[in-house]
Each structure stands twice: as structure tokens, then as C-alpha cells.
């Protein structure tokens, strides 16, 4: 025992700490490997095969990808999904406006916050049925109200041109999640900045555009990425309400993937679609992250 043993003890301690750390993380690592990594690698393999579950997979090389490139419904489903992702900026704007309103000191503020968050808790299948009723072309609440003010309401889920806008409208109902994130970030903005601006005679709009929005950019960045990832995986609403119609106008990418896998027994083609979707979402996310340095401001540190 002496000074020369202290570095060895330190190393043994560090090794022990590392082992303990990994042991604690082991359940998560095992779960990640079994439920994320393995299916991901298996998916890549199956995308190069013809596989109907019941028979062993047969290697077909890039045949699935080639067929998809020539499949008009593949491209239509991609177009439908990109169209639907227009819900994301709309959700962000509404969530932001709601957060600004709910940040005001008014009576019943807590109840209003709860009320606007509640739709997020409604299961998607239940809300799909609800909106199916509300937007029923001939008997729904929305068209009945429109008719009272002299407007012949559109077909909504029955119309090729209105079906996606109907789903986008439905999507704006669940902005509560993004709203909460904005609200939390708003409350982190130091009051002194507003006070200093007020002393310099800043108007409400100047404060909004020069203090609030810049300091909200991290939350906007987060909500934008999460929103894009979620919108590209839209499925339940179309599955419950329209089954991809009318005229395939709501056949979204994941719905078509599901049909290929479970209705047409084409697991290989569905796996190819899954890999393409991963690449598309990854590319878009990477683009947003790379551009973030130009427009996302982190508090007290300028841009990151």
C-alpha cells in the first residue's frame, strides 16, 4: 500500500464504475437490440427477398425496389404523405398561438390549459370515429352549420380533393402536446428581457419577433422534427375512416406498406418500403438539423 498503488486503485474504480453503469443500462440495451436493432437489420435483409411469412424468404435482389419505382400507387402514397405533412407547420402555428394565449395571467388559466390539452389524451381510433361523424357530408355537424350560413359543404372524406384537408383539419385538434412544450419554453424566457425592451419602447410585435420567437426556436426545432416524423407515419386515421379512399387520395405511405404486408402477403416489398421511408425521414431530419445552426438560438449563448 502506498502512493504507487493509488493510480491502479483509481483505474480499478473507474472500470468497476463502467461495468456497473453498463449493467444498469443492460435491460435497456437488451431491449434496444431485440426490439429495434434486430428488426431493423432483419428488415434490410427481407427487403431483398420475396417473403409471404408462410414460406421461406427467396432472394430477389433489388426486384422489390425496382417494382416500387414503377408502381404508381407507391408514388401516389408518397405524394399523399408529403401533402399531409403540411399539417406540421399548421400545428406549430396554432400550438404557438395557444401557448402565447395560455401564458397570459387570466382567471381559469389552469382549466384552459387542461381543456386544450385534453384532445391529446383521446385515443386516435375514438377521435377518428368522432371526426367521421362531424365531417359526415350529408348529416355531419360541420356541413349542417355551413349550410345554415348558405355554404354547401364539401364532401370531406367522400371527396378526392377534400379528404386530405379533412385529415389535416383533424390533425390540428391535437396540438396540445406541442403547445405544452412551447408553454414550458415561454416560461423559461427571462422576464428582464421584456422589461428592458419595454423601457426602450418596444411594441408587442417587436417583443414577439425579437425576444419571444428567437428564444422559442429550440422548442420550434424540437416540435418540427417530432411533427415531421409523426406526419410521415400517418396511418390510423386513414385506416379507420377512409381505408385509403376515395380514389386512393388518403392512401398514405404507411397504409400502403401495411396493405402490402398484411393484405397482399408481400413482406419483402413492405420491408423495402420501410427502408425507403427510413431514408426519407432521416434525410429530412438531417437537413433540418444541419440548417438549425442558422436559425435556432440557445439561451445566453447565441446560436449553437
Amino acid at each position: 500500500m502506498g502512493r504507487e498503488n493509488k493510480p491502479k486503485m483509481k483505474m480499478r474504480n473507474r472500470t468497476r464504475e463502467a461495468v456497473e453503469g453498463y449493467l444498469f443500462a443492460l435491460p435497456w440495451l437488451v431491449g434496444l437490440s431485440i426490439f429495434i436493432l434486430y428488426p431493423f437489420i432483419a428488415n434490410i435483409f427481407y427487403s431483398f427477398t420475396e417473403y409471404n411469412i408462410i414460406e421461406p424468404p427467396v432472394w430477389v435482389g433489388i426486384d422489390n425496389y425496382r417494382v416500387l419505382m414503377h408502381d404508381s400507387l407507391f408514388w401516389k402514397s408518397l405524394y399523399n404523405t408529403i401533402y399531409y405533412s403540411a399539417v406540421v407547420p399548421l400545428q406549430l402555428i396554432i400550438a404557438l398561438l395557444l401557448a402565447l394565449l395560455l401564458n397570459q395571467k387570466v382567471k381559469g388559466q389552469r382549466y384552459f390549459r387542461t381543456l386544450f390539452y385534453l384532445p391529446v389524451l383521446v385515443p386516435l381510433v375514438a377521435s377518428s370515429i368522432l371526426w367521421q361523424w362531424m365531417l359526415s357530408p350529408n348529416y355531419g355537424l360541420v356541413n349542417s352549420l355551413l349550410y345554415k350560413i348558405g355554404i354547401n359543404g364539401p364532401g370531406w372524406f367522400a371527396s378526392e380533393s377534400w379528404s386530405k384537408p379533412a385529415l389535416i383539419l383533424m390533425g390540428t385538434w391535437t396540438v396540445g402536446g406541442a403547445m405544452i412544450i412551447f408553454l414550458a419554453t415561454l416560461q423559461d424566457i427571462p422576464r428582464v428581457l421584456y422589461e428592458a425592451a419595454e423601457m426602450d419602447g418596444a411594441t408587442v410585435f417587436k417583443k414577439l419577433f425579437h425576444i419571444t420567437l428567437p428564444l422559442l426556436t429550440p422548442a420550434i426545432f424540437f416540435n418540427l422534427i417530432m411533427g415531421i416524423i409523426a406526419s410521415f407515419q400517418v396511418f390510423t386515421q386513414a385506416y379507420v375512416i377512409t381505408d385509403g379512399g376515395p380514389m386512393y387520395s388518403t392512401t398514405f405511405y404507411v397504409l400502403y406498406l401495411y396493405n402490402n404486408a398484411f393484405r397482399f402477403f408481400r413482406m419483402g416489398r413492405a420491408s423495402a418500403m420501410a427502408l425507403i421511408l427510413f431514408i426519407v425521414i432521416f434525410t429530412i431530419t438531417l437537413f433540418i438539423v444541419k440548417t438549425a445552426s442558422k436559425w435556432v438560438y440557445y439561451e445566453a449563448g447565441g446560436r449553437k
Partner: protein
Amino acid sequence: MKKRVVSFLVVLVICGLTVFSLASANGNAAVKINYWFSWGGFWGKQHQEILSAFNKTHPEIKVTGLTVPYNEMIPKLLTAIAAGAPPDMVTIFGGTNAGLYEKMFTRLDDFVKQNEETMGPQNWFPGVLEYVKFEGKLYGLPWVSSSEGLFYRVDLLREAGLDPQNPPKYWRDLEVASEKLTKKNEQGQITTLGFLFPGDIRTFDTNWVPYWFYRNNGRLWDPEKKKMTLTDPENIETLEWLASWARKNGPEEIERFLVSAEAVNPEMEGWFEQGKLAMTVSGPWSIGHITENAPNTDYDVTMVPYPESGKPVTTNYIDAMYIPRGNKNLQEAWTFISWMATEGTTIWSTKFGEVPARYDVAASPDFEKMSRYDLFKKIAVDYHKYGKASLPGFPIRTILRDQATRYYQQVMHLKMSPKDALEELQVVMQKELDKFYEKR
């Protein structure tokens, strides 16, 4: 303290082992078999009662039923078979790819040979066994069949100046009646639809839509030559007639009508009773629904119309029972499936007015206790004689449904001519069919 904890744990383990072994001992008296089906809620409970009836009369076998939602049945079943843990028996609504039968299900020909008198083909209505065969080999037994008639509102026909005693017999009669019976409001929305096709204008459902072609002497494929025959002149003529119905009513207005109806009830039950649908093709299950919900509905049933140069044909779409491959209790599963095909289905069909697939079941006097037995007999027995299997033995039914729907929608939304649609579909489907047979 430590000793007490250890003693407690030892006692707990001993108790647990005792309970487990007792349970196992009781369980060993009967062979347990699992059975999957898609009836849920009220129907699921009713179906479980049939299983209880079997278990009472067969103490050596214990059947446990599980409801698997319809949309999940095939994927779940495929996964279970691939994993080597399939249910011992399964009931599937409608058909799936016959080309998969030999991979998915146990062949039943030997069992049928051993029980020729009760299970031989002479016991079943025409065509029903075709649904559970592939290349002549039997893979399942029918649970119930179907048959259809044209349901029509007597009062609405009278109001429109039509004679309810002479309901539509041919396609041209159907067209005239449909036009007179369709009503629209001041916004141009359909408030009463004169006639609705099954499959409407969206889906080429292979259980229903092919029958319009059969009525016009058409067929969709030649099983001997393994060739699609979609472009035969009779088929083009049929699709043109279907499109003319869409043209007269307007595809957008039909969509609005359908979507509005489905928001209230996905199966559109009740619309005929409410007078929103004046005529529709349906089966005996609608009789039970009308009797229960709107017994004063003034209606009758006739044969589904056909062209004057054609012939009467009715569906005999079945729900079928299968024994998946990899089953470890084959004899018990066969005992159960054969009981279900005879006694089980008799209990069910007589209670709910389903169309029997077997002659002996159809002869059960319990059917006569049904309300409106006169209509039930017309559809389930008289019209059933004109039954024809839809695409029997067609190996890639789901692919046909997918591809044909793409063209069918275009035609019914007046965006493509029937001739062009069938020509393109012919090329696509022949390629898929050739691919299937090349792999075999």
C-alpha cells in the same frame, strides 16, 4: 427475521407447486385445443356458447375459443403457423389466396374418406366446397354459406308508380326502377338511393363483384388454361353497365351518400329500413336485423336481376373452418371441426338465420320458427340452387382485389373506359398469374 423470510418463501413455493400440479392433473383429463374466430362482442359470446355445447358432449376434448379481429386474423394466423404455434382450428370469413392453402392448412381428404357418408360432397350445396379446395384437394369445411336476393321496399315502389308484385327481373327493369326510386334534396344530395351495388364504386371485392359478370355469362379466368379472361366481350359489357349506374347517379354524390351512411353504421345497417335505400342486394342476415329493429318495414325479396341474355346466379360465399398446419392434436381438431360443420352450424344458423352450407342443416325444422321464414326459404334454399363459387381455386385472390380495385375505381368514377381498364388489368393480372405458376 431472515429465517422467517426463508421459511415463508419455502412454504409459498410448495403451495405454488401443489396448486400447479393439481391444475395440471385436472387438465390432463381432456385434450385442450385452441380455436380462433372473428366474432366478437355479442356474436363472440353466442359463439362461445356453441363451444360450451361441444365441450359438454365431448368430455375428452376441451375447446378454448379466442376472438381475433377480422383484419388481424390472416396476419396473426400466418405468424403463428410460421412460428410453429398455430391454433388447432380457425374460422375465416370469406376467402383468402387459395394458392396458400397447402402451406397454411392440413389437407382433409383422408378424414372425409373415412366419413364419406356424412362428410362427402353429396352433403353440401353446389359450389360451396370449391372455396376450400385448391387444385382439387380439400383444405377446410364450410361453416355457413351465403345466398342473396334483391331486397326491395314495397311501399316505396308503390309510391314511385311501380308494381311491387312485379319487382325488377332483368337489368333493364332494375335501371328503370332505380331511377324512379332515387330522390335528391334541394342541395342535390341523394336522400334515397334507388339501388346500391355491393362493392359500390370503390372496391372490387372478389366475394361480390364477380357475380355481376357471371350473370352476364362472363368469367374472369380460365382455370384449365390458367389464363385471365377479363377482356371477353361479356365482361366489357357488364362493366359498362355498372359504370352507367355510376354515371346516372354521379360518383361524387354516391361517395357522399356512402360515407354519410358509414359514419352512422359501417355496415349501413338500418338504411334500407329507414327508406334511404330502396333496393339492395343482401342475404338472410338482413331479415333478422329488420325483424329486430323495424318489424313494420314493408318489404319483399326477389331473385337478383340478370340480363335477359344472361342467367340467375347467386353468391355462395362461405365462412370456412380450417385446421392449420403444425397442429399437434389432429384427431381432436377433426372431431371438433366435423361437429361444428354439422351440429354446431345447425345451432348457429337456426338461431341467427344464416344460410346453411349443407342440405341436412337446411332441412332442420327449427328454421321454420324464424320470423319471415317465407323470405328466408326463398333466399337460403330456392335461390341457393343457383349458387356459384366466386373465382374457385384462384390462387392470388388478394392480388386481383388490389389490382382490379385500382381500375374499377377509375371506371366507376368515370375516369377510364371499361374496355381500357379491362385490357390493362388483363395484362397486369396475367403477369402475376404466370409468376405464381412459375414458382410452383
